[in-house]
């Protein structure tokens, strides 16, 4: 008869941010463990609260299934000696299988007779096997581990009790001298120490002890209470999913409460109020149905409805002190001037090897200047871009941003307004941090985009220069996201600047600054590669085929929007039968051109009309082709390049490239190299798997 199994690990309060992942691991590792141990079961259910991780396995059989299997031994001629007696080999085999020579029979395998025995392995008792389940708990990994007392184990938090049950029978094992039993603990204050009579009664027993063990049920419970409060009060709560998850992991028995604060605080920018409520206190801020922030907040208590008014009043008091701080910061920050705040940047380290924030700002100004020029901004716009670059970091010295880092830029824009800066300049301060998360919105204004690109380029080039290059899952400075941000911003605004040109510009700045950097060329190569990989990632996100992505990126990232257009074009051409003769011609040129030593052409060495004609056609298309590439018109460029296809085929039909005469040979290879250079400017066509069919 099948029964349920329950394991519960009781711990001191786990960090909320660990819980989702720990629960997912616990479930996955239990599935694996049950499979490895060949124990049949019906279902696996996971539970997690701040004080416990638990798993219930239903429909667990009493024992592993028995196994009958046939074991093959030595060949018959080895198993029997000349007199027909069992040899040592045969005896050894049967013993090894836990059998006797009498159990041996012969069976033919591929024309030869072999010794066999039938083996029967009796399934082990599940209750026995389950005693090893501790390995599942010990296999869980956490972002941070600790020791406690005099113990050796490192774990997320100290382990205080364990439950191990198969039906109503205790599964004995221990971790760090904590032994399994039937005892568990209810809610820290409302519940008590209690016995779980049998595995199936786990959830019910705990509910009576003010613990909702299921994460989903707790989350739903909170959400329902929040919704109810919304409809009762006519409010609209700012229901941040992440906050809801966090709060779910901070309580075992949730009860929603609400409180209010003085209206006077509403003069502080709402971003600051919301952040203070969310980050510091884990409250849900409240809006009116019209969408205005109103002076109320909603919290979730770990407990029941008793004395809820005391809890609400206590929380109101704390929030008041918090908001007073925010108000104080807001008023203080408005004193002085932007220039005064900028001075302080020279006392803030950006990166030990890369100087202060003031140093960084100087570099942003320089990069912004170049970019504004390249993008053809008019004088007034250039002036505004420069101002935005100068003051883009000033809010980092404000008390508000010191308190709430995530408000950087947001407060910058607000304060810039107050200090009378130009509208566009103020907005750029906020926008230069965009995109703020992966795939977030890019800056909407030109000035915001330029300063954003300048800041990010500076960060990436600076970091790579001193050897900070993301590896695997390690990217503490978010360099990947920033590189993606640059590429996305360039594309969104259609800026025709080759990415390599940008990288080289900033790279140049760094090496002129005489910072303690690595080998100049190495850094440059690393940077190009870093951006190339990011570009490839973005293109594959758009479902472009890997071979085509490689083909176009082998010619560099260039103007990224153009490069993407090239790729889309080649995706079409891959299946286009009329393109076959073009790529065959150009591909053949690419292959042969590898043998060329130079691309110097001596026209007097031409021996036939076809090679002369190919050269002439090349001369006629080369400049228009380059121009079309530079102007970001890849479709026209490819048509232009295609004009070479006919002459190339005719050339190969009539001309022996590898001629005896060395000079003639080099001249011909040189011609092919000239053409190949143009083809590579477009894409490495030979990297593509062509699929045209007639």
């Amino acid at each position, binding site marked *: 008869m099948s029964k349920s199994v329950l394991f519960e690990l009781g711990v001191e309060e786990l*960090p909320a941010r660990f819980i989702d992942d720990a629960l997912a691991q616990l479930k996955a590792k239990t599935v694996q463990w049950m499979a490895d141990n060949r124990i049949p079961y019906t279902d696996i259910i996971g539970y997690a609260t701040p004080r416990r991780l638990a798993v219930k396995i239903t429909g667990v059989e009493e024992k592993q299934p028995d196994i009958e299997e046939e074991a093959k031994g030595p060949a018959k001629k080895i198993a029997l000696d000349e007199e027909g007696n069992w040899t040592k080999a045969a005896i050894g085999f049967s013993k090894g299988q836990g059998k006797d020579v009498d159990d041996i029979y012969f069976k033919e395998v591929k024309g030869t007779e072999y010794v066999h025995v039938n083996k029967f392995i009796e399934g082990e008792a599940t209750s026995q096997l389950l005693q090893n389940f501790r390995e599942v708990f010990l296999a869980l990994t956490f972002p*941070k581990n600790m020791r406690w007392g005099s113990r050796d184990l490192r774990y997320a938090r100290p382990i205080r009790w364990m439950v191990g049950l198969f039906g109503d029978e205790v599964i004995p094992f221990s971790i760090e001298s904590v032994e399994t039993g039937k005892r568990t603990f209810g809610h820290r*204050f409302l519940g008590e120490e209690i016995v779980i009579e049998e595995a199936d009664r786990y959830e019910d027993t705990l509910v009576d002890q003010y613990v909702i063990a299921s994460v989903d049920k707790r989350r739903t419970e909170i959400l329902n209470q929040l919704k109810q409060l919304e409809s009762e009060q006519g409010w609209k709560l700012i229901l941040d999913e992440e906050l809801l998850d966090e709060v779910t992991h901070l309580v075992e028995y949730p009860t929603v409460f609400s409180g209010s604060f003085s209206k006077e605080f509403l003069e502080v920018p709402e971003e600051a109020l919301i952040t203070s409520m969310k980050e510091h206190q884990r409250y849900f801020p409240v809006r009116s149905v019209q969408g205005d922030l109103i002076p109320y907040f909603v919290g979730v*208590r770990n407990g029941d409805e008793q004395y809820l008014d005391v*809890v609400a009043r*206590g929380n109101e008091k704390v929030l008041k002190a918090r908001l007073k701080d925010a108000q104080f910061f807001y008023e203080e920050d408005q004193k002085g001037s932007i220039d005064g705040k900028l001075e302080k940047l*020279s006392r803030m380290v950006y990166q030990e090897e890369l100087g202060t924030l003031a140093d960084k700002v100087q570099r942003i100004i320089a990069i912004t200047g170049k970019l504004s020029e390249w993008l053809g901004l008019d004088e007034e716009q250039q002036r505004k871009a420069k101002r935005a670059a100068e003051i883009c970091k000033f809010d980092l010295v404000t008390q508000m941003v010191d308190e709430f880092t995530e408000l950087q830029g947001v407060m910058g824009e607000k304060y810039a307004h107050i200090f009378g800066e130009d509208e566009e300049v103020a907005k750029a301060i906020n926008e230069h941090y965009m995109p703020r998360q992966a795939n977030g919105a890019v800056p909407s204004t030109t000035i915001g985009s330029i300063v954003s690109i300048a800041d990010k380029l500076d960060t990436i080039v600076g970091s790579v220069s001193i050897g900070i290059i993301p590896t695997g899952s390690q990217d503490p400075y978010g360099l990947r996201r920033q590189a993606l941000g640059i590429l996305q911003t360039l594309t969104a605004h259609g800026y025709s600047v080759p990415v390599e040109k940008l990288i080289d510009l900033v790279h140049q700045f760094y090496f002129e600054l005489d910072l303690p950097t690595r080998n100049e060329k190495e850094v440059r190569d690393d940077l190009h590669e870093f951006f190339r990989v990011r570009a490839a990632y973005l293109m594959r996100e758009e479902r472009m085929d890997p071979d085509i992505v490689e083909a176009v990126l082998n010619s560099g990232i260039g103007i990224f929007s153009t490069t993407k257009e090239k790729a889309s074009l080649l995706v079409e051409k891959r299946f286009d039968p009329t393109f076959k003769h073009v790529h065959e011609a150009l591909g053949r040129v690419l292959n042969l051109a590898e043998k060329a030593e130079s691309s110097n052409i001596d026209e007097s060495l031409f021996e036939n009309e076809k090679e002369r004609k190919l050269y002439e056609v090349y001369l006629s298309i080369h400049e228009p082709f380059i121009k079309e590439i530079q102007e970001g018109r890849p479709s026209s460029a490819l048509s232009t390049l295609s004009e070479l296809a006919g002459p190339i085929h005719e050339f190969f039909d009539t001309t022996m490239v590898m001629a005896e005469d060395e000079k003639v040979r080099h001249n011909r290879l040189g011609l092919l190299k000239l053409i190949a250079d143009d083809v590579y400017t477009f894409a490495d066509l030979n990297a593509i798997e062509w699929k045209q069919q007639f």
Partner: protein
Amino acid sequence: MNIQEMILTLQNHWSNQGCLLMQAYDTEKGAGTMSPMTLLRSLGPEPWNVAYVEPSRRPADGRYGQNPNRLYQHHQFQVIMKPSPDNIQELYLESLEALGIDPKKHDIRFVEDNWENPTLGAAGLGWEVWLDGMEITQFTYFQQIGGLEARPVSAEITYGLERLASYIQDKENVFELEWTDGVTVGDIFAQPEYEHSVYTFEASDEKMLFDLFSTYEQEAQRIMEQGLVFPAYDYVLKCSHTFNLLDAKGVISVTERTGYISRVRNLARKIAKTYVEERERLGFPMLKEEESNHE
């Protein structure tokens, strides 16, 4: 309950748990953790259980006695238990009940908060304890001190006395808290708060402070080389406070800052290492005592 009664209650509670009651350490410091009663004694294998009140100076938090929540100097009630007992959380919660806080009538939570002090090469994992949304205690399991692994692990409990009192006495302004019946925090500390703020932000002699810093640092180095751990550590504490005064005045440049911190850290590491070596040379006397008690 006034602050004086709170202190007596906490002392009684932790004394009953076997903690030595120590007095505040007589050198300026930013937190109770920096007392040698915590920082040095939590190193090495010897058991150590202690509780004390520590006046803690944070020059940058000085507000001329005008801010209802911030102080140049506040008071911490500090508890160290090494090795951390299995029921340390329960012992802590009982102390709140002793202070008249009935957990059933409030919302008490343990919210992740990890502590790190790079200057002292120290780090720990634990929580801030919330009482109806207010942080009233730091609860930390030391993992590393002075760059050395903490084994066994000490549990550190740091109550913010003024915070807790403002809740218990239901006062919004720290200066209105009653130290004892009829005497407020303001009566005792308003003038020093004001004067220390004036001194810190306006009147201090920077040159003298810079000189003092170097002098203290050199002295710490010098006597460290003679293996005199406790005197050397006192000078490290003096360095730290002098640094905080200079920092609050905003006269420490970036390069100086990094340099100072790394020099103090190296000193702290050396002291930690030497402390453990000295205790070992003495045969870890408190370990023996503990063992003989069990016999």
